[in-house]
């Protein structure tokens, strides 16, 4: 045994949490504030937004001028470490299927750079099978989760407006920012097309809500995380570091979970992990284990946690772990708005992201696809970055510039005039829709491949169905109409057809994966009960996107936060009752 031994921590925690994103961060915050001793194991590096800063940097402060790398696929100033590929951590795909898997590897996970679009699911979103016969109903209703949404709104802060919409519930909103110029054009054009436009709902503080966090400085850089004011929601700024202040939380970074440990009775006793720095094996013990490693990583961890009592992987007697994997649908197009050529300059950074959006506005009973989508918009005068000015010949050869018709391309003072003329005239939009969670779309352990830590990797098997393809077709038709109504010219994404699924992004690309450890009342068809607790193992919980039965036409983070808060309070109650 001399050369290879496993180091066991003597301390026994009340909860060991795997992952520190929205789900893990909220669980740590709630449990630690209730006095429980918590250990977070995180596969990525430590990260402190107060020290690790990319906000308010200029493009020339990056030698690659903001270009993306494999370490920062969303650009050199983006806050997220890693993404589409990680050295030494492969995954595989079944032939003829597609899946792009985003993996953040840092404290706080992808909440450090996400879009802050914070939407509650509506009453219908929990009961879709009852409405259209597809997928399954959730074991909970909107009324069960509403109190937690209310508390998440108040604890974290979100701006928006109460519109009294049936399936886009009201909340406790801070005032939204006024629309930007291109957003006023979009609003008018979309409204003419019959598409409802309302203020966006983003977890960004337009007013202070407590003494620890400031309010938005309108630099438009939420994807860099708010180092200056903690004015947007990230798990690090808003949950993890505040939880650390209780003294009840230990964090083990660079710790790749290998297995959830169980005893002879089949209950969890802790987690084994490999420390990426020293490559040694460790175990950390806890009365409960909460997995929140992201939908697919949590499924992988459970599937890799086989024992005599759990021969099919932990929490998987139902055989559903890894199944029902689904992402948001996505399709986009963009172009230029000639009305904005040669526009006046002023600072319109605003908040990080859109000031307006369109929640789903139609009745699917009258359409050839069962679920809706929302529309996100962008455009205007943003900070130049790598790629700026690319392909000027397609603009200066096409549009009249200061009364002159020019030849495409060129050089010199006349060319400089053109770059100035076209700057800030871009507009675009994207749909984010609900896919149907299908049993046939899944990730499973690849029997042949391990990562550099020797942990078996996931093999994906996901295909879009006609539901999603028809939805993308509808998105593109809607976007074209909006662009046409405002007099914009489409320069990309306008030529899609059936041969490319109408521009429907490959599954995984929208980074809203969910469904792999789903909850339900029937232990034969679900991994978790309605409190995010494993049917097969009462001291095991899953609080990330894995637990979702379906993901609605809403970004899932706000619901992850609400469900994690709910599960965490259930854990506290059950511990008080000595059930755990």
């Amino acid at each position, binding site marked *: 045994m001399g050369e290879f031994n496993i180091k066991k921590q003597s301390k026994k925690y009340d909860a060991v949490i795997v992952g520190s994103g929205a789900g893990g961060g909220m669980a740590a915050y709630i449990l630690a504030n209730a006095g429980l001793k918590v250990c977070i194991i995180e596969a990525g590096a430590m990260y402190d937004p107060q020290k690790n800063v990319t906000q308010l940097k200029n*493009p020339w402060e990056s030698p690659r001028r903001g270009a993306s790398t494999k370490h920062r696929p969303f650009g050199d100033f983006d806050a997220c470490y890693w993404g589409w590929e990680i050295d030494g951590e492969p995954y595989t795909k079944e032939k003829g299927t597609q899946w792009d898997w985003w993996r953040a590897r840092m404290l706080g996970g992808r909440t450090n750079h996400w879009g802050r679009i914070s939407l509650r699911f509506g009453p219908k979103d929990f009961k879709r099978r009852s409405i259209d016969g597809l997928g399954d109903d959730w074991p909970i209703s909107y009324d069960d989760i509403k109190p937690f949404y209310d508390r998440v709104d108040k604890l974290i802060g979100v701006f928006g407006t109460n519109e009294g919409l049936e399936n886009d519930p009201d909340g406790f909103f801070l005032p939204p920012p*006024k629309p930007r110029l291109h957003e*006023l054009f979009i609003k008018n054009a979309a409204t003419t097309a019959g598409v409802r436009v309302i203020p966006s709902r983003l977890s960004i503080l337009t007013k202070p809500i407590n003494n620890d966090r400031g309010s938005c400085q309108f630099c438009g850089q939420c994807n860099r995380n708010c180092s200056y004011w903690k004015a947007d929601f990230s798990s690090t700024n808003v949950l993890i570091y505040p939880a650390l202040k209780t003294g009840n939380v230990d964090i083990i970074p660079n710790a790749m979970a290998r297995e959830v440990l169980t005893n002879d009775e089949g209950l969890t006793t802790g987690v084994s992990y490999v420390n990426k720095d020293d490559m040694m094996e460790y175990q950390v013990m806890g009365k409960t284990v909460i997995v929140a490693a992201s939908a697919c990583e949590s499924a992988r961890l459970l599937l890799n946690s086989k024992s005599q009592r759990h021969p099919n992987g932990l929490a998987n007697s139902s055989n559903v772990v890894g199944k029902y994997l689904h992402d948001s649908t996505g399709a986009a197009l963009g172009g230029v708005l000639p009305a904005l050529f040669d526009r006046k300059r002023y600072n319109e950074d605003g908040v990080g992201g859109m000031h307006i959006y369109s929640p789903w506005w139609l009745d699917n009973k009258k359409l050839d696809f069962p679920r809706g989508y929302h529309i996100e918009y962008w455009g205007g005068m943003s900070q130049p970055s790598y790629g700026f000015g690319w392909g000027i010949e397609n603009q200066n050869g096409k549009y009249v510039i200061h009364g002159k018709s020019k030849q495409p391309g060129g050089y010199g003072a006349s060319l*400089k005039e053109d770059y100035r003329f076209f700057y800030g005239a871009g507009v675009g939009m994207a749909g984010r829709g609900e896919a149907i969670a299908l049993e046939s779309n899944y990730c499973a352990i690849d029997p042949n491949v391990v990562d550099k830590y020797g942990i078996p990797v996931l093999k994906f098997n996901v295909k879009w169905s006609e539901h999603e393809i028809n939805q993308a077709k509808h998105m593109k038709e809607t976007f074209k109409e909006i662009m046409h109504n405002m007099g914009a010219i489409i320069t990309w994404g306008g030529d899609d057809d059936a041969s490319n699924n109408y521009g429907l992004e490959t599954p995984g690309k929208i980074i809203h994966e969910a469904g792999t450890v789903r909850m339900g009342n029937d232990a034969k068809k679900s991994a978790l009960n309605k409190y995010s607790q494993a049917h097969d193992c009462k001291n095991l919980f899953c609080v990330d996107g894995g637990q979702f039965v379906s993901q609605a036409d809403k970004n899932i983070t706000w619901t992850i936060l609400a469900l994690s808060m709910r599960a965490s309070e259930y854990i506290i109650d059950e511990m008080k009752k000595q059930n755990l």
Partner: protein
Amino acid sequence: MDRRKSIKTLVIGAAASGILVDACKPSDKKTPEATADAFAGLDRMKEEKAAYDKIAAEPDFFTEHEMKTIKVLQDIIIPKDDISGSASDAKVHEFIGYIVKEKTELQTPLRGGLRWLDLQCIKRYEKSFVECDSKQQLAMVDDIAWPEIEYKDDKGNVVKKGKVKPNMQQGVSFFSLLRNLVATGFYTSEIGVKDLGYAGNTPNRWNGVPDDVLKQYNLAYTDKELKECVSFEKV
């Protein structure tokens, strides 16, 4: 290749110890600064620091002659004008020198394009591009600076614009790529951002579109927006 080794190789070839001394003077800017300076405090994780330092330590991709040619071309593309300085003023060539080491797919089209350009100039003027006088250089550039484009007009008709002379298309492709890189390098520099008039990246309070701009476009906020949106005292 290790930077020191490459210098050594050069020196042995030149058989002159004086060159070694020159090459090691601090004014020799060929090796970019290590991560800490190059990113000016920008957050970097361990793995990306290592990746950057490795690339930065590699010898320059472009030869001295190639770099000289790029400098002439970049100032033809982005010269000094009434509003801002030139590409050379913005040190765009340094950006191009770095980015080709990172985005290696740019190397062949640029190296090959530069050689194509020199060969054209030798045929026409019996001189390389940089040795040509500025009139000759501009005549050459005029043959490769205007690509053909194709687009659909409002009625869906295909419109073709631009006309490339026979046998010039390779030069046009090269020049278009260089124009893209020069524009990106320039407009992401301090001089270029100022030229564009990008006014953000600074703490401020968004109070909506300025009144004169709303008026220019005949737009107005609704009463609902004015009531429900956040607003700040005008300074």
